[in-house]
């Protein structure tokens, strides 16, 4: 009893002291440049956090921790795979650690949730994930982002129409939140503009355990499927899809997250031949920049391959360094820093190829159409079938026209052909 009391009193005292003494954050004006990193080290997305932290190490190997003559400090924060906690953590990074920029946010929803904080605190936020509207209709002065969820999927639809014209009727299946709606919407828009038909749209919660009920609903008269899988879905769905005997029933295309390297080894043969579109060509893509990144990355994560979750984190940091160089390290001038972030252009050193700001807070990027193949050793890898270069988030539409339509959502574009 007495020991417990002493323990608890010590605990309470420590916490009260912590209240008073903890992060005052009154760093000197011209101290190091502080970069806040938001990721998920625990919770359902923990695997991505692990990959992203290894990507940060790989980045440090190549680019060091000094830029424009100033030291750089990284402040990683774990949002435990929860959107609200992400907001709390960004607030903590900005007001507590006094970071000059925050980068990260795994869910598209997290992107939407943290973006307003950039303007509220007049601090740049580099949204690593892909919420479309942050660079379209809901732009914030202090927010840039890496790509739009629909961006690679416009290209996917184009590729499918061009290369497999026999696939005319397609079922859309995706996770039931912004990432799923926007990826699927982008696909549907271009696919239907090119004469295809989306005949069914099904969205499942991200933490669905048993996919049987959804798989059982797939229309038999379709020839193809456009699938988006997020987080844990990438593991459960392929297995259950294969077990339901649908492997050869539909031509399956989809989002690059379906077969991202983080899951590829575990997915095994169930995803062999799956075609996906993404802003990253995969760990096996033979460009020199990519192979150097892959080598560095593997050193920090037990010889595992990086996927887009790692590449995106790495690439975003390269862009941030570039912007800091452009303003000669004057990150205290937030408006100037922000402007530089909105005009970056990097052609070298990026594992995913060149990135050019589009003036809307998004980047034009390569889109890779890949399929999954097997090496002689049995290891699975992405083989790149085609590269669309310098793809805009507006695809080939005129931005003004594109922005007149609503943001891709659960019911937009409407499902004209779902009888």
């Amino acid at each position, binding site marked *: 009893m007495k020991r417990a009391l002493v323990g608890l009193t010590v605990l309470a005292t420590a916490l009260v002291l912590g209240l008073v003494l903890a992060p005052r954050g009154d760093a000197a004006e011209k101290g190091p440049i502080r970069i806040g990193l938001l990721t998920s080290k625990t919770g359902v997305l923990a695997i991505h956090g692990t990959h992203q932290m290894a990507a940060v190490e790989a980045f440090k190997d190549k680019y060091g921790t000094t830029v424009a003559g100033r030291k750089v400090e990284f402040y990683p924060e774990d949002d435990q795979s929860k959107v609200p906690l992400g907001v709390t953590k960004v607030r903590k990074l900005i007001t507590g650690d006094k970071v000059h920029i925050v980068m990260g946010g795994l869910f598209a929803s997290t992107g939407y949730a943290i973006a307003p904080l950039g303007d509220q605190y007049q601090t740049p936020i580099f949204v690593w994930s892909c919420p479309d509207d942050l660079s379209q209709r809901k732009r914030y002065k202090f927010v840039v982002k890496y790509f739009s969820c629909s961006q690679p999927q416009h290209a996917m639809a184009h590729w499918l129409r061009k290369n497999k014209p026999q696939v005319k009727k397609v079922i859309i299946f995706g996770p039931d939140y912004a990432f799923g709606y926007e990826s699927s919407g982008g696909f549907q828009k271009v696919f239907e503009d090119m004469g295809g038909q989306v005949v069914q749209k099904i969205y499942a919660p991200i933490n669905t355990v*048993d996919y*049987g009920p959804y798989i059982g609903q797939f229309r038999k008269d379709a020839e193809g499927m456009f699938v988006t899988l997020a987080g844990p879905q990438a593991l*459960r769905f392929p297995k259950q899809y294969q*077990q339901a005997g649908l492997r050869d029933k539909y031509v399956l295309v989809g989002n690059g997250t379906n077969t991202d390297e983080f899951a590829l080894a575990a997915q095994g043969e169930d995803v062999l031949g799956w075609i996906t579109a993404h802003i990253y060509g995969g760990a096996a893509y033979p460009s020199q920049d990519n192979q150097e990144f892959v080598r560095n990355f593997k050193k920090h994560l037990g010889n595992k391959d990086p996927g887009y979750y790692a590449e995106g984190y790495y690439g975003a940091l390269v862009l941030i360094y570039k912007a800091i160089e452009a303003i000669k390290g004057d990150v205290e001038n937030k408006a100037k820093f922000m402007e530089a972030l909105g005009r970056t252009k990097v052609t070298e050193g990026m594992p995913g190829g060149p990135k050019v700001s589009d003036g809307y807070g998004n980047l034009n990027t390569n889109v890779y159409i890949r399929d999954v193949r097997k090496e002689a050793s049995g290891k699975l890898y992405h083989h790149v079938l085609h590269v669309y270069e310098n793809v805009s988030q507006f695809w080939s539409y005129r931005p003004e026209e594109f922005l007149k339509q609503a943001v891709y959502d659960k019911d937009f574009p409407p499902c004209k052909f779902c009888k």
Partner: protein
Amino acid sequence: MAVIFARRVLCLFRGTAMNYWLTQLFNGFSYGALIFLLAMGLSLIFGVMQVINVTHGTYFLVGTYIGLSILTWTGNFYLAILGGGLVIALVGIFIERFFLRRLRGNDLGQVLITFGFVLLLQDAILLIWGPDPKLMGEPKSISFTAHIGSFTFPSYRLFVIVVAAAVAAGLWLFENKTKFGSAVRAAVDDVEMASGMGVNVPLVFTVVFGLGSFLAGLGGVLSGPWLGLQYGLDLEILPYAFVVVIVGGMGSLKGAILASLLVGLVDNFGKGFFPDLAYFTLFLPMAVILAVRPQGLFGRTL
């Protein structure tokens, strides 16, 4: 709502309707079978010991990981199923013996401490197996897609149904044909009375907790080739088990079987008809039962 529902039902009856119903029935059945393995232990533990064991879903998941490790070492899937169950049984017995027993009569303390163990075991998974998702292969002999006419179904799900049925039969024999089983049943009805009748209550508690944990671990390993191994699965699947326990009645074998099948089917058809209310269709029957029959379909009166 009713119109949408009617239209959906009509759609389903047209075209490949028969196939659809068969497939979904089978899916619902098999998922219910898996949920049964998880929920039965939870129900027994609650029925006998009056402990709301929130750790149960985490036992299930840790069981899967242990099963995977055993499978990697030995290459024997059936050994993995047994081993995963046994290790989790030991973990459960340990927690019961050294923690929960000291808190008897403190309902709140017991439930809080089981949540503490959820967090502790989750961190252990991160530490030992890492956050990478993993997949478990099933033996070739039970891995094929069976066709009966135009109706196709994955044989692995059939295997799960068979195991669950065997477990249910075993439990029924245990409860009805063995002396110890009737002691357990007596404890479900009334612990004090059972104790008065000379039942060794601490032993019953340990056995029940071990048995419940064993079932969770076993179900976990069985879920490996179906659901995959994914950090966080424990709290995703736990609500299903709780619904079963509440609907079926705490501690009742019959209730757990029926409620599991009900939950599997409602989950399946709910997702088909009202995709937007997927969880609501699951929780609503539960709420209704709570309101009209708080002890569940087959529970003893409160």
